């Protein structure tokens, strides 16, 4: 145990995800030795993030204004929506530069154990966006785990019944690129077999 302010800092840092007591201690002493200027910048960043960042009214992604950068961009294809669980998934997909449509952030996945049902996710907002009739395709990109799959099943059923003309797709799951077949676990390999494609020669 350290005295007063140092221990308070360690305790606060230790509450962050992925930071254990040892890491918290290391960060705390790093901050103690850092220039006052650097620390002020960190403090400002922390205050700003709480004060300025909001959630996009359209897609639920983090945003500076009413709408996020992607939703506000006229060059984006507004007829395709990619549904993801978290804002960090948007960043991951953006890195690919493959997708030029817009996103919809659900804010989690269906998980009754954690008390999260469809009503706790931004499903209603998604349906409102679809009501306009502009959207042609919805790509479901929830995580390929049990909860993500359940959410995907729920959404695809809901979409199929309420908006029959809509194209609903799900991201493929299979082998990682650049990896070795022998290192793939049996579930992934099984999925890859299920989703195999005909080779166009």
């Amino acid at each position, binding site marked *: 145990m350290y005295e007063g302010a140092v221990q308070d800092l360690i305790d606060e840092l230790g509450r962050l995800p992925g930071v254990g007591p040892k890491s918290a201690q290391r960060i705390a002493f790093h901050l103690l030795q850092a220039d006052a200027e650097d620390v002020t910048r960190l403090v400002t960043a922390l205050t700003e993030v709480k004060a300025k960042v909001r959630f996009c009214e359209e897609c639920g992604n983090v945003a500076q204004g009413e709408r996020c950068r992607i939703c506000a961009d006229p060059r984006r294809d507004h007829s395709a929506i990619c549904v993801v669980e978290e804002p960090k998934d948007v960043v991951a997909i953006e890195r690919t530069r493959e997708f030029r449509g817009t996103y919809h952030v659900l804010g989690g996945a269906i998980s009754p154990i954690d008390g999260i049902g*469809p009503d706790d996710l931004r499903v209603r907002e998604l349906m409102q966006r679809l009501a306009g009739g502009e959207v042609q395709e919805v790509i479901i990109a929830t995580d390929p785990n049990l909860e993500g799959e359940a959410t995907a099943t*729920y959404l695809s059923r*809901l979409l199929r019944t309420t908006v029959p003309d809509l194209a609903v797709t799900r991201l493929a799951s299979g082998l990682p690129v650049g990896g070795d077949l022998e290192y793939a676990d049996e579930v992934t390999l099984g999925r890859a077999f299920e989703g195999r494609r005909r080779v166009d020669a």
Partner: protein
Amino acid sequence: MHVRHLTLKDFRSYPSAELALTPGVTTLVGRNGQGKTNLVEAIGYLATLGSHRVATDQPLVRFGAAQAIVRGAVVRDDREMMVELEITPGRANRARLGKAPVARPRDVLGTVRTVLFAPEDLALVKGDPSERRRFLDDLLVQRQPRWAGVRSDYDKILKQRGALLKQAAPLFRTRSGKGAGRHTPRAGEPTTAEARESALHTLDVWDTHLATVGAQLLYARLRLLRDLVPDLAECYDAVAETDANARATYKSSLHEDAAKRLAEGEVPEIEELRVAILESIERVRDQEVERGVCLVGPHRDDVVLSLGDLPAKGYASHGESWSFALGLKLAAYRLLRRDLGDDPVLILDDVFAELDTGRRDRLAELVADCEQVLITAAVGADVPTRLRESGHTYAVELGHVSAHPPSAAAATDAVESESESAESGDE
């Protein structure tokens, strides 16, 4: 396969232990509470990632220690493989195969295969259905490790669906009294009718997943049971020297028609089972919602064991139940041996004391050709002489293992002399 060497660190009563083993019969003799079973329990843990005695890992770690290490050198087809497990209660275990750590402990399943028979196995016959389900599922995983994944997926789905049913239950129960409970909608929140609708929609999703994964598990169990039953009858008769027609039939929680077919030993295709599970869920939906419990699926099934026309549970004597449990384990052994083209390690923990002389001798005969048999006994004389003479006997005393030369083991029929030599021959 056989275990050539076992190393323990802070496992149960052992601060550390080294035990060299050979193919053939090894008998561990020692008074009660000296740590015989701990040794075989450790080998069982390497094979199943679980103990046959306790459900949690905490008791496996020596009191006061943070973690336990179990390491085994296993020889199969003249190739040696090292498996190491680091057991830390409350955290995920870590495993190594050879020198390299593996991503998940599950990946070491299949390196060591054991069939362990212990006094606890009496519960297979006399205990709850969960004991028999666990027996089947454990055997499934030993046969094909990939079932471990299906099994854990199914458990997760069950938990999620169970949680959903519990949350939904009050919505359907308080039909008349809207003011009752914390589910009264506030302004702007969905009304009870809407909430019910939404709950049922979500439930549909979990039904689908439960049926898909449940059907796979059910299919695997049915196929396993079909392969196991002929061996069971043979092994029981061989141990008990009767013609008792020991049988095991699957008792399913599916709707009546399907359950009847499964009880007759039919093994339908996975797709057919999936549909049957969905139909059955549909029929009990009201009850499930009312009680907040998943009522259909492999987790509610049982295996009915019977001798002749009578169920073993309730009708069989203590000795018969014991022989039945032994028959199940020996049948499992034969099944694995046939499937894998290799002998699992057979562990007989404290078995002989419960059997009459005839059964002891016949059991000895049955296990004589196994590649490796590990036997524990409190009284050395309980183990038939031919078994002890054919292999090595070790004395276990207060967490120390000392080797007896095989000739000495053969000569010592009395326990006293064995424990005395254990004291003098400490490692």
